[in-house]
């Protein structure tokens, strides 16, 4: 009886902390999400945008976009791009975090500097990378040719594969410090005496890494990967500014294609449907994440 009452109190206190933020998010983002779902089932084009009574067309918009070759490419590109970015930025971010966790004079200062790349407005980042990747007077070609790695300048943003690579590099440049920071926080939360105890027991560095660091860091790793996935999967500005989805449609991703469908071709229904496909993909990732966190609950 007593414990029941206490549990109830706990519940109410918990809600008191949590609910304001939840209400805020549901109001300002829940509505846009609902709105997107609504119009994705309607016939919304330039002619019907202003009218109140739009035809309900069921899954027609979804059928249309899945028949659209560019959309299918965009879907594939989004996954290629996300996985590519995650691999680079997580592994390098982890290496950086481990490296700068060592205690040496410049560790903190340089770690602070590296974070700057993450703080630049994405538009500026996209522009500077576009500039560096230029074929004729880009610095990257100039350096590679001076080092005799390549003989002819490469048209980085002029071919599908290299353009995608360019985007992945640019995005990773932003993502590495982000991963590094979150992983550093996680690393610092591991009590040092565990390592000491392991050292006394004669554990090697590798053993300590796989037996202590990784397991204890797992919740952090999971949230870094999931947040990284979400942030990369929905990327818009970087692609829009750097390649505009081109050349042709070689770097078109879901977000840019959805935007184009809506604001350039005025197929608002299809644009919303494309946005919802993006949403569903991320929703599935979120469910996987939820499954894992239940196991890690400390309380």
């Amino acid at each position: 009886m007593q414990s029941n009452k206490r549990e109830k109190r706990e519940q109410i206190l918990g809600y008191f902390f949590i609910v304001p933020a939840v209400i805020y998010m549901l109001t300002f983002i829940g509505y846009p999400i609902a709105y997107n779902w609504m119009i994705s089932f309607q016939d919304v084009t330039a002619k019907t945008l202003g009218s109140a009574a739009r035809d309900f067309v069921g899954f027609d918009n979804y059928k249309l976009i899945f028949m659209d070759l560019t959309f299918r490419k965009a879907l594939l590109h989004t996954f290629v791009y996300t996985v590519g970015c995650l691999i680079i930025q997580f592994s390098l971010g982890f290496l950086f975090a481990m490296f700068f966790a060592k205690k040496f004079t410049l560790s903190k200062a340089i770690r602070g500097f590296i974070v700057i790349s993450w703080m630049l407005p994405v538009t500026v980042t996209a522009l500077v990378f576009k500039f560096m990747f230029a074929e004729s007077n880009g610095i990257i070609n100039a350096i590679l040719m001076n080092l005799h790695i390549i003989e002819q300048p490469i048209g980085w943003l002029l071919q599908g594969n290299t353009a995608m690579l360019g985007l992945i590099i640019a995005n990773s440049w932003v993502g590495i410090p982000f991963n590094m920071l979150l992983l550093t926080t996680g690393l610092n939360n591991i009590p040092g005496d565990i390592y000491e105890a392991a050292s006394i027991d004669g554990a090697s560095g590798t053993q300590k890494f796989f037996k202590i660091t990784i397991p204890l860091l797992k919740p952090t790793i999971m949230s870094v990967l999931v947040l990284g996935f979400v942030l990369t999967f929905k990327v818009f500005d970087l692609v829009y500014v750097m390649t505009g989805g081109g050349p042709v449609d070689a770097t078109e991703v879901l977000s840019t294609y959805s935007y184009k469908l809506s604001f350039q071709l005025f197929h608002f229904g299809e644009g919303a449907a494309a946005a919802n496909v993006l949403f569903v993909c991320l929703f599935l990732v979120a469910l996987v994440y939820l499954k894992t966190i239940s196991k890690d609950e400390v309380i």
Partner: protein
Amino acid sequence: MKKSIALLTALAMVAGTLMACGSSTASTSGEKATEAAGNTAAENENAASTDSGSGTTSADGRTEITFWHYMSEDKEGKYVNQAVEEFNNAQDEIYVTAQYLPRDELMKQYTIGVVSGELPDCGMVDNPDHNSYASMGVFEDITDLYNSWEDASFMEGSINSCYYEGKLYGLPWGNNCLGLFYNKEMLDAAGIAVPTTWSELEAACEKLTTDTCKGLAISAIGNEEGTFQYMPWLLSSGGSVTDLTSEGSKESMSYLYGLIEKGYISRECVNWTQADAEKQFAAGQAAMMINGPWQFSGLADDAPDLAYGVAKVPKADNGEYASVLGGENVAICTGANVEASWKFLTWITSKEKSQDICKSIGRFSPRADVNVQEMFADDPLSSVFAEVMPSAQSRGPSPDWPEISAAIYTAQQEVFTGQKDVDTAMTDAQAKIDAIGSK
């Protein structure tokens, strides 16, 4: 897990209905918010503050209206502001506030404005897009006003771009078209005359192209600009937007691709806007470029010492000179103060004002009663454009133009990047255009 998803959907739906229907509750809390925001914002707002939407009346009894344009502030925008100020001083009934927005941003605002109702009183629109936005319901039908306007006299191609389904939705503001800019020094040094035909152009490119300099700079970017730049070539060889698979259409594409393959045009043109082409030309990275009269002021800034000339875009060996009409229209937005806006727009597009403003912003007056050839007779650069202007063909007008244009610039990009051969790209583009109506 299922339960939480169900709950979540329910919550989202509740939030949705609250937002959609609860305007009464929203506005009470909103008023407080506005008040607070207003306080912080107040110091910034000058007397001329108006909300977008239908005109309001200010303290001194003048009707206030807003005019949105995309003439960038450091260049043409100055002249727009001057004209607006002149209008405000010339009468005491209407006060116009001009508001600059970057072009993409302005177009997005129109689209969103259709749904939200937050539109300015009047605004500017790129002429190939006019039909789409008219079909969306962004603009007011001004057919009757126009028919009773005594001073109505516009060039046919320009005013046609304002018609949608037989009704008039705006007035032409300024025209432009494309020409061939050439670096005089480079041409002289190579000892060649200004090319007038495609084979002459190719021969000139061959001589002018060096390790550090391309023969010609164009823009073939994946948006309207790419289509705009391609049109003169397409039309000159007898091709047409409605028949991309014809010999003439394919010839123009093959010709341009040939220039790229031979290295006369940089492959990077698929990522270049027309402004990027101008930068290349100004920096001496290209001996010639295809561009428009609005670049004069940019060239004066970027390369004040550059000696350059302008000629017509070379014609196909067995074809005619062709040009395509670019430029802006102005229109009254839905739900705006039509009467006041009409007064302002007819003032700013009147014969006298139109020729003044257009001259200052690197455009040509779209009015039939302004003789642009005469006006620019002494100007060796502008006169070339003025001569081409009357024969310039408009894009569309069609509410589906954005899609038609997308098919064209995509084909161009596919060919230029070597993804598809000319035949396949053009056939695919035509198929896309044919499919637009049936969707």
